[in-house]
């Protein structure tokens, strides 16, 4: 049954090839059908794979190059529940985006379907592979498809700039990854993740491995949009078509985080396991800065898609904290948060698409009160925003609760309030936007919010209720994540497997299955009182932030003047950093790499 393993990646790629081949002389319905069918099949196989990888890793060695005597030379997929779960999320979101595009982008030419289908397949391949260089190839394949999709509207300047910024930043990140891979290959002579980890395990770590760690982590963090490598993301999201944004925010960013976790737990845990405090310290700090800075920038946006993009950056920071605590509980929290965040953020972006189609703008100030006639759309938008805050048993709560528990176990409980503040701030910004657009609350002018160039609305939008239905379905699924009985326990079991390097190496290199699958209960995972309180606190912060954003002008003048004097210059400085100029982005990337590498060079010994 090992033939089933590569199918989630292979089928969409074949589908994309067939659409390319027949695209010029077949009607649009054929492209749509092929794209939806191949992505749907991929989704089904990813789900099967997720279920069947629970007892043990599912392996597939391409060309029959099985490891001999514990040495892996061939290229292989090694599938664990978390990786397969992310593949299923990626293909599921691609399917939803393609269905939405049926009505939203009725005149899309066949390259759109080719790119979307290939993008979905590449994301699956990236999540499933067990080989470091193969990971790079999938990374680049999904990258190229994503750059082209970001710049898809080539008649507008914004998408071109967003596409170029994304392409150049991510490509520099990819070169860092190749360099890191080359260094690891030089040290170990292996490219299989388990093999590299196994070879490094017996040796004392040296400077070369530290450099390789830095380059790989930074390269993948560029994709994951972690500060200071996040600058490309807002540009790309603001300009890409709404269904594409669903994939960018819901799956692509998270795949960067998965890669960091995968590299750590298969390779670097071996040489650096004793020094994991140094690695945890740097990554937790990056995650917290990202969560807070992303949330703050989110509050300063009036362009809805750009606002959601910064909210994604903030959540990527929270997920990175979950991964960086290097703990089973918090890794499970990151995984469940990826699931709920992907669905809810996807729903929000789809709502933005409908807003653009109905009201011909996506700017909060320009749309002031114009959404009053769309109560259902407004409800979906606002409820999805609430789901992202992490109120008890709503949406992303399960992820927050598990990360909180992990942080308590690791004696870094102080991260919990910071994460709650970040979630509240970003959620408040979304609620403010919803209130201004769909209720007409607050003033029409706000000097805090920067307007962005407007976007051409799609020319022919088909059946509108269908668009709403897709967004509503994703909303319901995303909200339910915290209420699915047994999901938390399964995520924890998956995280435990993910972290077990020795068992992974035994299964991949020697084919020895791990014994005994625990019977997992189908009950809601209990959460602590602190998590409930932090969830409620985040909700209160969100309400305060939304109210502040809407009715700031009612505060006494003296307060506002003082606040403007104190907070104005730093905020302007922060905006200036997000300059939209690609040279600046790459400079930040270089500086960030140097700082992270420098800290690890000093601490990892």
């Amino acid at each position: 049954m090992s033939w089933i393993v590569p199918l989630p990646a292979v089928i969409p790629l074949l589908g994309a090839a067939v659409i390319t081949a027949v695209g010029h002389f077949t009607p649009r319905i054929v492209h749509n059908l092929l794209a939806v069918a191949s992505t749907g099949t991929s989704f089904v196989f990813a789900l099967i794979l997720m279920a069947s990888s629970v007892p043990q890793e599912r392996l597939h060695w391409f060309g029959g190059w099985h490891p001999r005597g514990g040495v892996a030379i061939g290229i292989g997929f090694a599938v664990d529940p978390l990786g397969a779960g992310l593949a299923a999320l990626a293909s599921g979101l691609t399917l939803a985006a393609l269905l939405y595009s049926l009505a939203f982008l009725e005149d899309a030419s066949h390259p759109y379907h080719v790119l979307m289908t290939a993008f979905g397949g590449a994301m699956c391949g990236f999540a499933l592979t067990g080989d470091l260089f193969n990971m790079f190839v999938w990374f680049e394949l999904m990258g190229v498809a994503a750059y082209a999709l970001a710049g898809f509207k080539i008649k507008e300047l914004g998408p071109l700039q967003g596409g170029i910024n994304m392409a150049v930043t991510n490509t520099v990140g990819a070169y860092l990854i190749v360099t890191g891979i080359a260094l690891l290959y030089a040290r170990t002579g292996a490219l299989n993740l388990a093999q590299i980890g196994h070879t490094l395990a017996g040796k004392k770590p040296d400077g070369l491995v530290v450099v390789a760690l830095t380059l790989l982590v930074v390269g993948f963090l560029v994709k994951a949009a972690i500060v200071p490598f996040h600058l490309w993301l807002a540009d790309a999201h603001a300009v890409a078509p709404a269904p594409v944004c669903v994939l960018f925010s819901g799956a692509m960013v998270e795949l960067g985080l998965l890669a960091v976790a995968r590299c750590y737990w298969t390779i670097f845990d071996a040489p650096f396991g004793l020094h994991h405090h140094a690695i945890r310290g740097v990554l937790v700090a990056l995650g917290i800065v990202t969560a807070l800075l992303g949330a703050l920038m989110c509050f300063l946006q009036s362009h809805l898609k750009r606002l959601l993009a910064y909210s994604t950056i903030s959540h990527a920071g929270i997920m990175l904290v979950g991964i960086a605590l290097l703990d089973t509980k918090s890794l499970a929290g990151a995984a469940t948060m990826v699931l709920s965040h992907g669905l809810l953020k996807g729903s929000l972006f789809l709502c933005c698409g409908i807003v653009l189609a109905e009201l011909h703008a996506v700017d909060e100030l320009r749309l002031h009160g114009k959404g009053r006639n769309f109560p259902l759309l407004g409800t979906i938008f606002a409820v999805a925003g609430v789901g992202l805050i992490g109120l008890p048993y709503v949406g992303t709560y399960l992820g927050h609760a598990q990360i909180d528990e992990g942080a308590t176990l690791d004696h870094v409980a102080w991260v919990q309030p910071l994460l709650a503040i970040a979630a509240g701030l970003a959620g408040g910004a979304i609620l403010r936007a919803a209130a201004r657009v769909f209720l007409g609350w607050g003033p029409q002018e706000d000097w805090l919010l920067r307007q962005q160039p407007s976007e051409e609305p799609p020319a022919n939008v088909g059946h509108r209720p269908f668009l709403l239905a897709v967004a509503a379905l994703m909303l319901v699924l995303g909200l339910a994540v915290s209420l699915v009985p047994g999901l938390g326990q399964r995520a924890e079991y998956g995280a435990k497997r993910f972290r077990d390097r020795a068992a992974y190496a035994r299964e991949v290199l020697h084919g020895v299955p791990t014994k005994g699958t625990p019977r997992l209960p189908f009950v809601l995972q209990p959460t602590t009182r602190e998590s409930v309180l932090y969830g409620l606190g985040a909700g209160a912060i969100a309400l305060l932030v939304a109210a502040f954003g809407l009715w700031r002008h009612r505060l006494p003048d003296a307060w506002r003047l003082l606040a403007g004097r104190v907070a104005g210059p730093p905020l302007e400085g922060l905006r200036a950093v997000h300059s939209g100029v690609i040279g600046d982005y790459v400079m930040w990337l270089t500086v960030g790499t140097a700082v992270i590498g420098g800290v690890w060079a000093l601490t990892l010994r």
Partner: protein
Amino acid sequence: MSVAPYLVAGWICVIGIYGIVTSRNLIHLALCLTVTQSSTYILLLAIGYVKGGGPPIFKGVKLGTTAVDPVVQSLTLTDIVVSVTVLALILALALNVHKEADTINPDEIGELSG
């Protein structure tokens, strides 16, 4: 094995990134990206080099003949294919920027910021 190739790889990587950071022209920027990438080719080939090794073609060669590492060469080939795709895409986007904005200076596009 000499350290020279590693120094060259490092130098090319650094000047490529310097070029990207200071670029005033999207075509120049795309080429700087290619320069940066070239450093990975040199690094990979230097890693696979074996002193006195022949090409890794084993047809009609005595068993036990020294050869350089074929794996890094195929990695380099893959790397080249990937980079050409990205380069083509960036150049296509740059061409359209020129059509729309009549400039290819990334500082002057200025559609997105903040």
